[in-house]
């Protein structure tokens, strides 16, 4: 049990060392530890073998496929012949000279940025909207969380039907505008990626909303009172006091939305299958298509490239967001 230096605890005032040494003296504070083995006693609060089953599952279902990913990317594994031989960097060379992978990567990055942006904007707006703990708000929060729980494929199919040229959205618009509307929402080679990002953001905004709500609730009341006393209005409080203090929630939401949607597949596949003209073909759909042609090694190489890109993105983004957190808090 960690005891903060300035919190009066049992024995902390007794025998504080000359010169203000900060080394925790567990014997003084009396933390129970097996055999009281000095400085490492803190880590033995529970037996380490409690973790082994979880580690085993993690190893088999996560670690092992990742390692095999590295292995198979350097082979010629395909549906067309038996046996798997090493071919060195051949798969990488052919992928990069082809150029399709880079196009798919670019589409995936655009998609991820759009989803991260929209999901957080929607989620934050919802959190602000449903902030107060009234009965209606609590019920509404639950309702807006339901899309998070629905299967992404189901959502994809439903929206594909809604967004058809003769679908419900055009019907509603037509009713409002008083003329027949036949916009092909999923048929535009430039804007369909935005439409599909909106669908994905709609699905996950409930989760962002929850995290932002938790963040809003954890802002200490005295800070808000101080702001009110100083004469700050709602918008000023939001901009200068509440949003900065939400930095941890922002870190979590932006990081998970961005990096999670780099792996996007289900929603896009169900709505557009990567169309029209492959303008919404995120890398996972390209991998799926390559796998379907029986080119297993090339598909594995592409997943490896995706894995590396996500890692390359993750470190700077999380580092920057955490640094912002530390600066603001």
């Amino acid at each position: 049990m960690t005891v903060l230096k300035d919190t009066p605890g049992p024995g902390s005032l007794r025998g504080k060392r000359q010169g203000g040494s900060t080394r925790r003296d567990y014997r003084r504070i009396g933390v129970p530890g097996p055999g009281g083995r000095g400085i490492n006693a803190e880590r033995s609060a529970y037996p380490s073998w409690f973790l082994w089953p979880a580690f085993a599952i993690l190893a088999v279902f996560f670690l092992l496929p990742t390692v095999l990913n590295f292995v198979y990317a350097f082979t010629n594994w395909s549906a067309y012949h038996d046996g798997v031989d090493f071919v060195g960097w051949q798969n990488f060379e052919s992928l990069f000279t082809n150029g399709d992978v880079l196009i798919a990567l670019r589409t995936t990055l655009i998609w991820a940025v759009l989803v991260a942006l929209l999901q957080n904007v929607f989620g934050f707006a919802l959190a602000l909207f449903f902030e107060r703990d009234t009965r209606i708000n609590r019920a509404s929060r639950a309702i807006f969380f339901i899309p998070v729980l629905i299967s992404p494929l189901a959502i994809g199919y439903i929206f594909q039907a809604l967004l058809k040229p003769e679908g419900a959205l055009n019907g509603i618009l037509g009713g409002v505008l008083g003329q027949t509307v036949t916009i092909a929402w999923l048929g535009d080679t430039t804007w369909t990626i935005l439409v599909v990002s909106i669908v994905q953001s709609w699905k996950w905004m409930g989760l962002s909303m929850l995290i932002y709500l938790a963040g809003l609730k954890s802002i200490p009341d005295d800070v808000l009172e101080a702001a009110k006393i100083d004469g700050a209005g709602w918008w000023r409080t939001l901009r200068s006091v509440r949003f900065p203090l939400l930095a941890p929630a922002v870190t979590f939401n932006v990081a998970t939305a961005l990096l999670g949607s780099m792996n996007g597949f289900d929603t896009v596949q169900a709505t557009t299958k990567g169309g029209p003209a492959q303008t919404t073909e995120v890398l996972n759909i390209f991998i799926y298509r390559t796998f379907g042609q029986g080119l297993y090694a090339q598909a594995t190489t592409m997943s490896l490239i995706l894995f590396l890109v996500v890692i390359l993105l993750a470190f700077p983004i999380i580092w920057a967001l955490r640094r912002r957190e530390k600066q603001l808090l």
Partner: protein
Amino acid sequence: MKASTFAKAVTMAAAASLIFTGCATGGGGGGNSATDGKAVWNDPTASLEGVTLTFGGGTVADPGLTQVMDAFTEATGAKFDRIAYPDPYEQSLLTKVAVGDMPDLAAWQPTTSQLTTLQPSKNLLSLDDAPWLDDLDPAVKDVTGFIGDTRYAALVTSPSVMGVYYNKALFAQYGITEEPANWDEFIADAQSIKDQGGVPFYEAGGDQWPTQWWPQVQLAEAAQDGLWERVNSNEEQFTSPTILDTITEYQSLVEAGLFNADIKTGTVIDQANAVLTGETAMAVQVNALLLQMQSVSDTETIDANVGWFPISQNGNVATSIPDNKNGVVAFRTGDAKQEAASAQFLNFWMTTGYADYIEAANAVSIKPDVESPSGVPAVAKLISSSLGTSVGSMQSLAVANPDLYINLANMLQGTQTPEQVADATQKQFAQLAQAQGIDGF
């Protein structure tokens, strides 16, 4: 503490290495050397009590298949377990085969390029001396189902063919009294329809896959001349003038305004309705269009409204493209009894049970001594009779099946030029051929 960390590390390493070795041999899980891969032909109605055969198919119900399975169960006592693989069908089944989880039988496109993906020498039973082969219509007997000289797929219905479906009333209305005898006359007829205010062609650009028939029908004579053999050995490519010109021709027809206004989003369902009801005059399609028409209309209406003729560059040579409803493969599961039972089912299907099957399937019979049901549309009979002079498609004759249709659909959307379509398709074809280890790639 140190001892316990060490023990933990050792246990993890041991577990990991066990898992690794277990997984390392998993790649060769499919196919067995327990049997020799040749089908054993028992009496079609011999008892198979206690045997359950798994049949892999798509998600759409097939009345003919249901009938023949029930008949076989009645005759032999064998039971069936139908597995519906989700779309895309071929991909789903291939994934299962790759991990060794194969059904006893499956519906499969019997073309060379599709059969290759199943690694037939390892995974399929060879059907070379099947008892029903001599009873088949000679025009279709050897048209498909082979890898090299070995027959791996049983043809059960008349193979699908690319051709032109037209609305009879519109042809009469626009003064077209004779079917065009070559490509130039075909386009001239289309132009005449457009000049008179009609819509000549309907293309389902939204569904994408029908786009590939337009270049292919133009290549019939070239295919007869050995085009695909040359492509298979890299002597000719998709970017060579022979194929590239057909893609450019397709693009120029679209630009000339000879197609439907909603070409970018049109579906096959819309296409069938358009030709059936007379919204558009013609569509270049395969048998799937007829099936779609049959699902929304009856034989009488179709016979009254829809006609069919094949078209090619210099004549009316049909291009055949057997699809996954035409062929059945039997898997080499390694269990001799199951394999014999699968072969027996195919034998029953194509001999004793064929007449009832074809009646239930309402399809054209491929056995001269079994008459086609009376409810079969006239179009289906026309299609079947064109097979005698037909030539194989890219799917039938090329060693690999690139996504030509995706690139053509992109061209319709305006994001690729014909040259880029040919280039992308060739790159993909080369990649697939290389994966198969074919010389020249």
